[in-house]
């Protein structure tokens, strides 16, 4: 009798990954492995201008001299970079202009994922740029955005149609030689999203991309670049799922955000990639470089992330606060269940005067999950009056999981003010019992308690996304109090 509720919770947490289907679509791929010829082939397939190829090759040559980082608190078998297919595109006969022309198999996949594109267009007012493996297949709402001068398209298209903007900003936040995974991405990235919001324009809808990794053994290397010009505002949503496969898949994306004077960029992610099975087999390796630059004064960048998936997550959305009075924010919920490992956090680099940053990190560990927060706040010499507030809370849901916190602080200006708060709590048997005594089922009670724990982050998400995130969290934690 003592463990009946624990058992229910376990049954719940062990629920199977619901997006683990594989879409049967013919794909056009390049041979396995990586060398200069492969890179040339990718660039050629995409019909890229010379500057892009040059940039890719520069990145590749740099990557060859770099070593895979080992400082993160995650453990995984060595990745064989010569055994990965670096380019995979669904075979499409011609350029897709409207949804009707998209492979129906593909659309079915989206439906299974719960993103009916047409529906979403009409109901939610969300412009979706769907990335299926490597090529962006449908960009919706483009026309409407165009009227406002907003550019929202696949990265490939941006390279062809807006080469000057791409040239100006690509690598301006994450240089091609920034780190091992970013260099790899720069060399081989196949597609991604591009958004440009012109001066003074407030983007009237949430821009959204759904990433999905489908083909077996393809690493996915997308690249996202979002530029908000002076006084512009944009909110961008990224959601991800991946099919279930035995071998781990590599995901090394790069996201660059640029906010000019008085501009605001909000970037929200709900990530529920396949985390691997209960024994820790399979799942996505997620090594992502996300960085935003508050280039102009009074600019603001907000990262909000809910990370429930991936076998391994290595991710530090960061802000470079260059403009005076600029603001960087990081709100994060990271879940590590079963054998998942998450090493996430943020870096706030204060360069300009009176720059402010806020870090709210909520780590949830269950099963054998290991959750690490790694954060850095750096106040440079010129950052007079800089301020940072950091809060890192960990919630433990079993006795076999772990939570680790590594805050790094570097202050070179004595007028800076920093506050750091941290807490670790175990989901209480007493909290659970209290809820159950009020008539609430254990799985709902766990949901409620965890959602309460994450509230400060959830309220930063757009409404529909917050609901989705809450559900996801419930699914990925079901059965995990022990």
């Amino acid at each position, binding site marked *: *009798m*003592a*463990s*009946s*509720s*624990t058992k229910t919770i376990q049954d719940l947490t062990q629920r199977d990954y619901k997006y683990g289907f594989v879409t049967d679509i013919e794909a056009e791929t390049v041979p396995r492995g990586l060398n200069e010829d492969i890179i040339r082939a990718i660039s050629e397939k995409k019909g890229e201008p010379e500057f892009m190829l040059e940039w890719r090759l520069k990145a590749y040559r740099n990557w060859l001299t770099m070593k895979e980082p080992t400082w993160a608190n995650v453990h995984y078998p060595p990745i064989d970079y010569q055994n990965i297919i670096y380019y995979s595109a669904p075979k499409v006969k011609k350029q897709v202009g409207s949804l009707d022309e998209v492979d129906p198999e593909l659309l079915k996949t989206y439906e299974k994922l719960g993103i009916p594109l047409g529906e979403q267009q009409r109901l939610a007012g969300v412009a979706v740029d769907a990335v299926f493996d490597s090529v962006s297949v449908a960009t919706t709402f483009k026309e409407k955005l165009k009227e406002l001068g907003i550019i929202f398209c696949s990265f490939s298209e941006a390279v062809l149609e807006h080469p000057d903007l791409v040239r100006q900003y690509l690598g301006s936040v994450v240089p091609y030689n920034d780190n091992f995974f970013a260099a790899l991405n720069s060399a081989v990235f196949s597609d991604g999203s591009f958004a440009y919001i012109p001066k003074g324009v407030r983007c009237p809808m949430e821009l959204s991309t759904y990433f999905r990794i489908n083909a077996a053994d393809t690493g996915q290397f997308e690249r996202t670049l979002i530029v908000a010009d002076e006084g512009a505002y944009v909110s961008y949503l990224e959601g991800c799922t991946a099919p279930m496969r035995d071998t781990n898949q590599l995901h090394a994306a790069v996201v660059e955000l640029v906010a000019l004077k008085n501009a605001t960029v909000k970037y929200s992610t709900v990530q529920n990639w396949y985390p691997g099975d209960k024994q820790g087999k399979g799942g996505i390796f997620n090594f992502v470089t996300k960085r935003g630059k508050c280039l102009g004064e009074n600019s603001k960048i907000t990262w909000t992330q809910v990370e429930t998936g991936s076998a391994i997550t290595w991710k530090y959305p960061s802000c470079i606060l260059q403009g005076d009075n600029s603001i960087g924010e990081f709100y994060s919920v990271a879940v590590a269940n079963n054998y998942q490992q998450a090493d996430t956090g943020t870096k706030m680099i204060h360069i300009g005067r009176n720059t402010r940053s806020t870090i709210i990190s909520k780590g949830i560990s269950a099963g054998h999950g290991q959750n690490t927060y790694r954060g850095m706040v750096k106040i440079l010499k010129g950052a007079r009056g800089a301020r940072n507030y950091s809060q890192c809370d960990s919630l433990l849901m079993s006795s076999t999981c772990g939570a680790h916190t590594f805050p790094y602080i570097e202050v070179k200006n004595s007028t800076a003010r920093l506050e750091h708060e941290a807490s670790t709590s175990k989901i*209480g*048997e*007493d*909290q659970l*019992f*209290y*809820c*159950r*005594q*009020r*008539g*609430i*089922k*254990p799985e*709902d009670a766990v949901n*409620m*308690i965890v*959602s*309460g*724990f*994450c*509230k*400060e982050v959830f309220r930063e998400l757009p409404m529909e996304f917050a609901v989705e995130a809450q559900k996801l969290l419930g699914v990925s934690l079901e059965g995990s109090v022990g």
Partner: protein
Amino acid sequence: MLQIRNLHARAGDKEILRGIDLDLKAGEVHAIMGPNGSGKSTLANVLAGRESVEVTKGQVLYLGRDLLAMPPEERAWEGLFLAFQYPVEIPGVSTLYLLKAGLNAIRKHRGLPEVDAIEFLALIKEKMKLVDIDQSFLSRAVNEGFSGGEKKRNEVLQMAVLDPKLAILDETDSGLDIDALRVVANGVNGLRSKERSMLVITHYQRLLNYVVPDRVHVLYNGRIVRSGDKDLALALEKKGYAWIEQEARGMAAGAPPSA
């Protein structure tokens, strides 16, 4: 309503309840008194289904059903309510949200339609008068930063909203000043009815000046060592628990308890 027979329970390695017998009929209010550590909260927890306490022997019938076989939430659906001695804090979850979820789970179990946010607000506003609580409490996280008295009032409010058949109040009077005590007592009295039974656990007699019990039981060292009417509480107040301890030792030595 409630029949407890030879109930034994342990927590950790310690046997805490050592043979409890009790009969509570519909509409009755019984008080359970006893010194600290005698097992009062443990009894309340066993009745509510706390899993950290293990029942080793005995039986409990609630409305004719085997209470101990039900998980805690089912007991709540069937109308059992526990006002906790130490209500726990749940950060980020508002009282409003928790209580609405609880009420709707209970209603669902009884085949009643769920109440929506507007109906629920109307209901809770009416009940709030009973315990003199400010509305701002409802949107604050459950018990977070509440004073001792506020937590106790919040428990009584929840009881009023969930409208239980059997209410167990675990030292809901402790730590209250006289005004708060009166508020809580009024709240409890307002909920007395022919259908509702209450088990009022208290360390002191003073609550029983306001909430007059039908029976008083004295719990000592995991056993009910004495039962009587409300005068027993007064006698206890006058002579102190030492009297009971002496008697209990006498009882252990073989002398029959005088009721």
